[in-house]
């Protein structure tokens, strides 16, 4: 059933050729609003990667052993969203209890991530492309890394941009979109190396 693509190809492709932000437009809201400072952007990127891998690893068995056998495919969105919300909540509580340092760093981002469309998007891609467990986890890890890379690049550029003179209207989101467009053009150059569909 599962397409026969090696995990390595999926990893590289999900970071570069089908980058979550630059070619699938997922997780744009937090990408734009949390990218004014490099340090916070870095923290958010790390948190997104962590949550992506965790929720995908949980949702894969939920989909294949619970939703499909009991014929609940039409309810999949509700179930996915609830699993995401619950696992983020548990992750936050666990981090608070066992790794307070990490929690102080990433804690504020976790609730924000629940509604980040990249998370649900990766899970829906996993279902549509019919990945097996290893492929799904590798795909989510690569997507998280790609997201992290993109937000770090944008935040670094925007920090430098704070000292430059821009026309008044272009400041803020408009210039962020245009920079992202240029980054996306650079990433188009990667397509053709690996293709996953």
């Amino acid at each position: 059933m599962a397409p026969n693509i090696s995990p390595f190809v999926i990893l590289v492709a999900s970071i570069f050729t089908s980058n979550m932000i630059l070619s699938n437009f997922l997780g744009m809201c937090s990408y734009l609003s949390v990218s004014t400072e490099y340090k916070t952007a870095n923290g958010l990127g790390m948190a997104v990667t962590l949550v992506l891998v965790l929720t995908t690893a949980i949702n894969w068995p939920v989909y294949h052993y619970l939703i499909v056998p009991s014929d609940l495919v039409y309810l999949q969105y509700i179930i996915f969203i609830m699993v995401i919300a619950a696992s983020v909540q548990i992750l936050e509580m666990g981090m608070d209890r066992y790794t307070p340092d990490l929690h102080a760093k990433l804690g504020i981002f976790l609730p924000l991530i629940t509604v980040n469309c990249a998370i649900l998007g990766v899970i829906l891609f996993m279902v549509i492309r019919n990945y097996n467990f290893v492929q799904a986890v590798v795909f989510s890890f690569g997507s998280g890394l790609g997201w992290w890379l993109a937000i770090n690049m944008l935040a670094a550029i925007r920090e430098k941009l704070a000292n430059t003179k821009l026309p008044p209207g272009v400041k803020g989101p408009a210039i962020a979109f245009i920079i992202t467009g240029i980054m996306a053009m650079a990433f188009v150059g990667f397509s053709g190396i690996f293709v996953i569909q």
Partner: protein
Amino acid sequence: MAAEKIGANFKRNMFTENQVLRAILGICSSLAVTNTMRNSLVMGLGVAFVTGLSSLTLSAMRNIIPHRVRMLVQTLVIAVYVIFVDLLLQAYLPDISKQLGPYVGLIITNCIIMGRAEAYAQSNPPLPAMFDGFFAGLGYAMILLMISFIRELLGFGSLFGFQVIHTAPENLWTIMIMPPAAFFIIGSMIWYISARAAKKAAAKAK
């Protein structure tokens, strides 16, 4: 909040406070589906439908939802309507449903819907809330159609699938149907709109 006339609400959601261009909400899907006008139209109508009905439902239930779990309830109500849209598309427009792929399900995480539920439906009666949500969705659909008009015309040389520009394929701008163009077009639109708003505010201050 004083009751707002329907006409004023329409104008506010479509133009002065357009959710996509002014509040920068709902960006993910507005970029992903805009390479053809047909997809944009279907997506826009789907979002308008979900926003309107979920605002109606949430506003009708606003007094019985405990404040602490309201996010969860909102998400669930939205998800129910998204499932309706998804099943309808699969039944009647299967090829568009396939092209939109995961983006139909991603209407759930479209911030416009949650934003309207929080900002308007929570403190207003059901019918105005429904119109507010529906108009916000229409404003979103309008932006989608504007972006996809540019992208489809220059990228495929067609509008709604009808060939308008008759030319060799190598003369068309392939970049327009690839992701970067979406970023450039929406960036320029936001640039124009916010420059105009700034000018207006400056004129008022004088």
